[in-house]
């Protein structure tokens, strides 16, 4: 029993209550809650590091009757990334929202979203995931609408409806599983699930629901308008964290409890959808006219990469090879989390300064916002996957495994995606440096610019150089709960 | 046998109400049918030995959900009258 698991959900919730109750002091209370939540995640990561996978039952009831929370190395790493990105967003939001009322509305919803993220990463119960997804969807849609404006409202409403459709589809899958097995706990289900029509249909429904929420191609249509029209800190959270948690749940189900149900053909299909997402998302990002729209399309591509790993991992037995691939997958997810959050925060900065975020009219941005432009560049390096970023190592291991296993065709989307990413990143940077840069101050607005810069540095240097530590966390671990 | 017949009537009515609610174009009519559907659903759940859920569905699903939708339907109907087009 480790109290850090339930606390990782309860502290952001507590913060949400405090900021709801005292809106006038929302910022101070919110920052305290953000720091406390991050501290608890640090405690959790240390616990996993020292003791291996942790599990906490809730309410004094063990599974199958009660609900449990579980954290292995992968979950600990994802929670840590979430905490760092969320902390940066929390600090940035103070500088971004000029209207104090908007900030007051932002805080409680944002902390509820954070609680939902932690709850979903820690979830070990099929129905509990449903409730977490609804909390994620509702708070996410409400946050995305904070920008005001008709476009933001329309996109958020669509996001809400798509989310509802996704969670109902997911719940139908849960009902089928309960009909066949009378259980909801993932660890117990892992021992009972097997090949067969019922389990396969249930997995298909669960996956469909989660794929809608993760914006896996071709269910990504709702993502670009939502992410491009939300306020920048919210876009950062939606792109870096919200899509990630749905994708992670999907991957976790496939590689964990439902591993016995999945067939190579189904895994190949998932990989194929991922490949389509990589190419389509990157292509649309290259054609995008606005900075935030570019970033949103690039998220579709980055989610796609994660699914390329499924056909490669699916057939592997537990062992160093599987651990290495899981590590690579995780490294891609973490790098993208940091980089995309940094990119959106920087894009928001540009938008606020210039009054727009049209890429063609970015000329001179580097001159006026050197730190922000540097952030965009660093994040771009991570999105392309240049060394020493974490995604370079991730892609490298992916390519190696594809060749080793004779599934060389997975190389093609990776190469295409990388080239397209290089093209869209350089397109932005070329525009930003359009005029001769003569920076006066490197950082112009500390609170708003520094968080993004730190995240971008983490994506490029931190993860690339500290990948060894990540492996240490994963070493005794398999996705297994 | 009579019990099965009773079940079949319950289910047939439920499905009919659902289809009617889903296919009516006029907003207020659709919402009314949705409320009727919710209340009938509560009845069916009471038959299935779930009185707790039946109470909640009648009060929350059909009652409050219906009240919320009725307010929206009234607006939609007003707009339809104004514009004369389809809403």
């Amino acid at each position: 029993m480790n109290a850090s698991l339930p606390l990782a959900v309860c502290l952001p919730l507590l913060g949400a209550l405090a900021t709801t109750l005292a809106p006038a002091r929302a910022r101070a209370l919110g920052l305290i809650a953000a720091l406390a939540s991050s501290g608890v995640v640090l405690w959790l990561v240390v616990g996993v590091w020292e003791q291996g996978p942790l599990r906490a039952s809730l309410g004094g009831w063990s599974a199958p009757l009660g609900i449990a929370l579980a954290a292995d190395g992968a979950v600990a790493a994802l929670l840590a990334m979430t905490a760092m990105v969320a902390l940066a967003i929390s600090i940035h939001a103070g500088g971004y929202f000029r209207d104090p009322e908007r900030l007051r509305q932002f805080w409680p919803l944002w902390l509820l979203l954070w609680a939902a993220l932690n709850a979903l990463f820690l979830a070990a119960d099929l129905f509990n995931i449903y409730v977490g997804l609804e909390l994620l969807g509702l708070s996410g849609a409400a946050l995305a609408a904070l920008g005001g404006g008709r476009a933001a409202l329309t996109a958020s409403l669509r996001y809400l409806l798509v989310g509802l459709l996704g969670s109902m589809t997911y719940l139908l899958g849960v009902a089928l599983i309960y009909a066949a097995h009378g259980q909801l706990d993932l660890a117990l289900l892992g021992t009972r699930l097997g090949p067969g029509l019922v389990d396969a249909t249930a997995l298909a429904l669960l996956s469909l629901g989660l794929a809608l929420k993760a914006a896996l191609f071709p269910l990504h249509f709702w993502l670009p308008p939502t992410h491009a029209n939300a306020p920048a800190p919210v876009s950062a959270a939606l792109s870096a964290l919200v899509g990630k948690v749905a994708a992670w749940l999907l991957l976790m189900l496939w590689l964990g409890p439902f591993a016995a149900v999945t067939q190579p053909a189904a895994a190949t299909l998932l990989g194929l959808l991922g490949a389509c997402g990589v190419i389509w998302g990157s292509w649309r990002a290259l054609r995008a006219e606005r900075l935030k729209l570019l970033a949103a399309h690039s998220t579709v591509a980055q989610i796609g990469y994660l699914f390329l790993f499924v056909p490669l991992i699916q057939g592997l037995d537990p062992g160093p090879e599987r651990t290495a691939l899981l590590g690579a997958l995780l490294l891609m997810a973490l790098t993208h989390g940091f980089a995309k959050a940094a990119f959106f925060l920087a894009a928001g900065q540009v938008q606020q300064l210039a009054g727009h975020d049209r890429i063609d009219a970015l000329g001179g941005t580097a001159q006026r916002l050197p730190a922000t432009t540097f952030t965009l560049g660093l994040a771009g390096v991570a999105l392309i996957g240049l060394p020493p970023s974490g995604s370079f190592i991730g892609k490298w291991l992916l390519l190696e495994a594809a060749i080793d296993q004779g599934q060389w065709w997975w190389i093609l989307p990776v190469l295409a995606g990388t080239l397209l990413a290089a093209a869209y990143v350089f397109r932005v940077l070329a525009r930003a440096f359009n005029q001769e840069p003569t920076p006066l101050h490197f950082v112009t607005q500390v609170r708003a610019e520094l968080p993004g810069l730190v995240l971008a540095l983490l994506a490029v240097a931190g993860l690339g150089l500290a990948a060894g530590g990540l492996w240490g966390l994963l070493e005794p671990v398999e996705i297994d709960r | 046998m009579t019990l099965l017949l009773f079940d079949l009537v319950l289910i047939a009515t439920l499905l009919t109400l659902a289809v009617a609610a889903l296919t009516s174009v006029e907003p207020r009519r659709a919402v009314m049918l949705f409320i009727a559907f919710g209340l009938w659903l509560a009845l069916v759940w009471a038959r299935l030995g779930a009185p707790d859920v039946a109470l909640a569905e009648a009060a929350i699903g059909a009652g409050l959900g219906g009240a919320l939708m009725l307010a929206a339907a009234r607006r939609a109907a007003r707009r339809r009258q104004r514009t004369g087009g389809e809403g």
Partner: protein
Amino acid sequence: MSTQLLYGGAGVALCVLGLWAFLVHRPLLRKLIAINIMGSGVFHLLIALAERDGAPPDPVPHALVLTGIVVAVSATALALVFGRRLDEQGGVPEDER
């Protein structure tokens, strides 16, 4: 034919009907009715699964459905306010998808 299959089948039918209506209808209100009926179908399936031929029914699905009903009405309320706000900003929002 067992009670579970009979009522569970009705749940599946409601679910598919709701899904169909959600996909083909554009006005927000009709979409919300559709998604609510789809949800009711899933709930109905769960309630049917709880039925145990004479023995007292399984309370776990009942509790899950109670949770689901509250979640569904919360989402409906939020979506309706979104719709009203769009409405006030002019145009015919219900044609938006």
